[in-house]
């Protein structure tokens, strides 16, 4: 297993730049997730690491070796595709041994390795089955098995759970995590599903528009998003933003919105302009009768353990995660107030979060 490092990586297709000047270091034995909406460049980045696309510029290191311009077959990595790409004209056993045959292993070695991988993934009972007769989950396991048998330097996975139904996805998520712990392989995993990313990743890189916006542990990404996009993309529902027409000065710790003073974490950075936004997660808000932003209830979603109340205010719709006992009616007048200090101010010009006592 090896660490992976990408330096100033760029990829253009004609006029379109899919990946912009990206830098990343993925540690040995780390489960690293590239997360972003479709078209954000996450798959292109993964395909460049795999050697399925050649970078326009920049370097990719696999271990200590620069592999940016090597063929996929010369890189010693394994790739799990979204549609699995299991060879339909071969049975499970042949699919698993296909990568080994090329590398000139002896027949007995191939047999041992295939059986080992099959046992690990609990597919040893279907080794002689045809691919077309397998269920989605089993196909997924075979695809993982084909990656495993090689014992490659790194595993690359492109939305491998994307085609499974929700129930199976959860199960496979757990299995993947367990498998990762068992074999400790460096893994780069691409997904657009933030829940999948949160539950699997040691670290997550959030991408948008070909750029890596933030790469950190899931809890940091969630609690201390580096940009407005990260804040809105992560979390369900995403962070609320309230536009404020005032600059932020150093050491500022209150903010006046619509005549009400709100305490904010002590700010350590001066905003560039006067149009900024105030970001807060739905669970850090509460409904009150006074001292908050005025609005009326627009909708109530019942989630079993919590309720999400959407409040229409002069600053747009604000979502509040409330206790299940909260009883509000549609069109009822309420006020929304932060229940703690987990407030982030985003600079209107750069969309980046400003440093503060909370965002240190």
């Amino acid at each position, binding site marked *: 297993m090896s660490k992976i490092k990408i330096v100033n990586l760029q990829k253009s297709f004609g006029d379109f730049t899919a990946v912009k000047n990206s830098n990343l270091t993925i540690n040995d034995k780390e489960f690293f997730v590239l997360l972003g909406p479709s078209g954000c460049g996450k798959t292109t980045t993964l395909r460049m690491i795999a050697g399925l696309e050649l970078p326009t510029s920049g370097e990719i290191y696999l271990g200590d070796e620069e592999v940016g311009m090597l063929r*996929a*077959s010369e890189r010693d990595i394994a790739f799990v595709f979204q549609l699995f790409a299991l*060879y*339909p004209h071969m049975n499970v056993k042949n699919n698993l041994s*296909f990568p080994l045959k090329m590398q000139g292993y002896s027949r007995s070695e191939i047999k041992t390795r295939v059986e080992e991988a099959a046992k690990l993934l609990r597919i040893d009972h279907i080794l002689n089955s045809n691919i077309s007769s397998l269920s989605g989950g089993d196909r997924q396991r075979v695809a993982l098995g084909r990656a495993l048998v090689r014992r490659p330097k790194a595993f690359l996975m492109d939305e491998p759970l994307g085609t499974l139904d929700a129930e199976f996805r959860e199960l496979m998520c757990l299995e993947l995590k367990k498998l990762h712990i068992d074999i400790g392989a460096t893994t780069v995993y691409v997904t657009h599903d933030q829940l999948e990313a949160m539950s699997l990743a040691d670290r997550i890189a959030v991408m948008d528009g070909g750029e890596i916006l933030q790469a950190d542990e899931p809890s940091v990404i969630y609690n201390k998003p580096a940009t407005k996009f990260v804040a809105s993309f992560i979390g369900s529902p995403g962070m609320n933003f309230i536009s404020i027409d005032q600059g932020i000065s150093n050491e500022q710790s209150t903010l006046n919105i619509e005549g009400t003073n709100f305490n904010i974490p002590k700010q350590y950075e001066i905003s560039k302009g006067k149009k900024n936004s105030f970001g807060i997660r739905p669970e850090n808000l509460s409904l009150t009768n006074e001292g908050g932003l005025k609005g009326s209830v627009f909708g109530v979603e019942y989630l079993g353990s919590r309720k999400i109340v959407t409040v229409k205010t002069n600053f747009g719709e604000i979502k509040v995660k409330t206790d299940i006992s909260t009883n509000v009616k549609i069109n009822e007048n309420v006020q929304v107030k932060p229940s703690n200090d987990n407030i982030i101010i985003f600079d209107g010009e750069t969309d980046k979060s400003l440093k503060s006592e909370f965002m240190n």
Partner: protein
Amino acid sequence: MDTSRSYLEPSSFSKKLAATIIIVYTVITLIPISWMVMTSFKNVNSAISYPPEVLFEPSLEGYVNLFTNRSRQSQEYLDSLPAPETWYEELVRSREMVITGPSKFLGRYSNSMIIGFGSTFASVFLGALAAYAFSRFRVPLKDDLLFFILSTRMFPPIAVAVPIFIMYRKLGLGDTHLGMIILYTVVNLSLAVWLLKGFMDEIPKEYEEAAMIDGYSRLQAFFKVVLPQAMTGIAATAIFCMIFSWNEYAFAVLLTQFNAQTAPPFIPTIIGEGGLDWPAIGAGTTLFLLPVMIFTIILRKHLLRGITFGAVRK
């Protein structure tokens, strides 16, 4: 209203109608073929008798005549010969003739085999490579090139017979196997490229990518992963190419005389005494029909799969 029947299931009336149409069509198609096969088992007289004989005494005369050259001899000469050793000698003697040697049919037939299968293989092989390239790579002017390839089929091939004839004379390709293989391959290639490109487009590129990551070169991935999955398309294409080059008549007449003459220009020239030897022609045509028939039956499984290919998400 009959509600027991599924809306997807055709009604029994439409099923019967479909069956009737298919049977009528099959009968109409089979009449000339069965007439031909019947003719091959008639003797010379019953083949041209009027009214035509539907019931007749079968004879292998046509087949014997097809494979042999014979000459008519006087009864005295025939009597002076030792007794015939084989059934076909006996048959020929009963017509007051002796076998003077094998006919050219076998040679022409094997020419057809060599040229037919040779050009089919070449068309499918080159077509598959070209189709793969068009399907996967960013070829400059791809659409124009594809149209250009197709445009070679917009006129009947025989329209360029004169230039090809002159070209083949100059290049020394006239009346050679290689010349005919090249010619039929060129004609078939545009069809092969277009047909196979459609099939290649249907194969997700992830399969080759997976193989390449597994350590195979692109060409190895093509042979090990893409070709096996394109078998349906290859089978369909091979049948079309085979049928064309096997049946082709005009170029064969024009460009081949002895060495590389194929069966189609040869069969109609089988002349018996006092006119065409219809049973021999019938026999030649029947035998000529067999390879394409067998070839199609062998590949039929793939053809049937080809019809539904891509219809259902795998």
